[in-house]
């Protein structure tokens, strides 16, 4: 069985979804909300998303890719939002391997080499 993608919005939905897939490798990309035209308020997220999507075929079998919209800009800027407090996220975009210290932040997500390394290496 290959890999699968699921899309969520907000912290609670993210946590519920991650719990549902407990036991399988989970990768998550956190981005700022998108407007009616599908464009995110976060310019780096706009750049990172296609790079990450292009590497998804490298995901190990059985893994889950969670695409998570974190919220609007004011929510994100709040230093006490749940993503910052509980998941220790410092910026968007963040691409991480859930449950490990392995993550890529901001411009690191623009580099397909690094994305591939995160997806394929231990």
């Amino acid at each position, binding site marked *: 069985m290959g890999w699968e993608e699921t899309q969520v919005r907000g912290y609670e939905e993210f946590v519920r979804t991650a719990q549902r897939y407990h036991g399988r490798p989970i990768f998550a990309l956190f981005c700022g909300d998108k407007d009616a035209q599908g464009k995110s308020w976060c310019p780096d997220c706009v750049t990172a998303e296609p790079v990450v999507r292009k590497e998804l075929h490298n995901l190990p079998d059985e893994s889950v890719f969670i695409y998570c919209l974190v919220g609007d800009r004011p929510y994100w800027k709040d230093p006490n939002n749940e993503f910052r407090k509980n998941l220790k996220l410092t910026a968007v975009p963040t691409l991480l391997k859930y449950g*490990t210290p392995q993550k890529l932040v901001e411009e690191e997500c623009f580099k397909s080499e690094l994305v591939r390394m995160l997806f394929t290496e231990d």
Partner: protein
Amino acid sequence: SVQAHNEDKAQKLMEMNGLKPVPDSYDYDLIVIGGGSGGLAAAKEAAKYEKKVMVLDFVTPTPQGSSWGLGGTCVNVGCIPKKLMHQAALLGQALQDSRKFGWQFTEEVKHNWMTMTESVQNYIGSLNWGYRVALRDNKVTYENAYGEFVGPHTIKATNKRGVEKLYTAERFLIATGERPRYLGIPGDKEYCISSDDLFSLPYCPGKTLVVGASYVALECAGFLAGLGLDVTVMVRSILLRGFDQDMANKIGEYMKEHGVNFIREFVPIKVEQIEEGTPGRLKVTAKSTTGNQIIEGEYNTVLLAIGRDPCTRKIGLDKVGVHINEKTGKIPVNDEEQTNVPYIYAVGDILQDKLELTPVAIQAGRLLIRRLYAGATTKCDYVNVPTTVFTPLEYGACGYSEETAAEKFGEENIEVYHSHFWPLEWTVPSRDNNKCYAKIICNIQDNERVIGFHVLGPNAGEVTQGFAAAIKCGVTKEQLDSTVGIHPVCAEV
């Protein structure tokens, strides 16, 4: 397959009558064996000059099965976790002191080993990952494989699944570091742990016997006791060999007065298991070094910290003719970190007669690369390197110990200025008022230039760093005297 092709190539190379034919073009400009402080610093520096670099890093698991990621000893099983656990112990002390400063909490304060260890290991994990990102970003190839020389300019890399690959390079840098030594007595590998295991131990070590009197032994004994554990240190002869003995004894006294037991002039001869468990129960039999007395003791954990041996004996150095000191395993190099084989260099703890410190390895690695690829000429300065021992009472030093200064310059030519001090922060909670201590050793014949600086007290590392810079500039006693102190801090003394 690639493997067969490479083996074929190497075979042809080595078949040629003991001549040393080298390939016309190498796979890499530089292969670094060992991804620790020295190796990684050199690799990253070389990448800056657009050299094609590979790093091979592999951790042979300990007898207890412990292993770790990229970064070397300092990051994984040395300086970093050590300082964090030392901090954990200091915080325990601070919590006790805090009551005198007015903080009120009714619960008894207890320590949870697993919580601390998980946090420390998590941080280390982020460092391991960070190094891998940095290497990849700088286009340095990294392989988690054991490197050994098989012929001129040729190395064999074996990964954990046993897959072998051959690589060639114009130059090599050996930065394989060291691993803890075992005693060679019955039960040592089966039942004892070392610093390689301690920082990721998945259970609280409990009542611990630390064997050794190195800074590793004393630092570990110190924080384990600070976390509330029953700790005993078994010392063969002196404490902190190589360090100023006056200071070493003061450290020992402080630790003794603060609950660490010392058994002096004994060595273990046997370790047996009384009961399995996490931790289990061990029986240690020890013999006196001065007579025939035998003693026994029971402990949950036995931590060996009797020295470290260079990882130079099983990397094929004989195949390329690199000389090592047969007795110690260390590699002699010239002042440009070059071994007797011109295209093979070495940095870090494996070097003969050089300091075993992370910043030294990093500095030596970087400067070496700049000399090789950027036309620089600066060599690594191994003189007046500051250090700190993170025992419960921290000890910072730079320059000569009192004994070495007396030996080198003559006792009548040195002047020692010293002072006890009582940190202001210790007054209110009534902590010891006569334990902190500082001394400088001056060369009378050279304007009373400061040739040795020693301080025993909180934040010794922070204090010592500035004085190291001053010593490098040749500070004299008079200049120190004329520098106005900051008040109220320990450093003003």
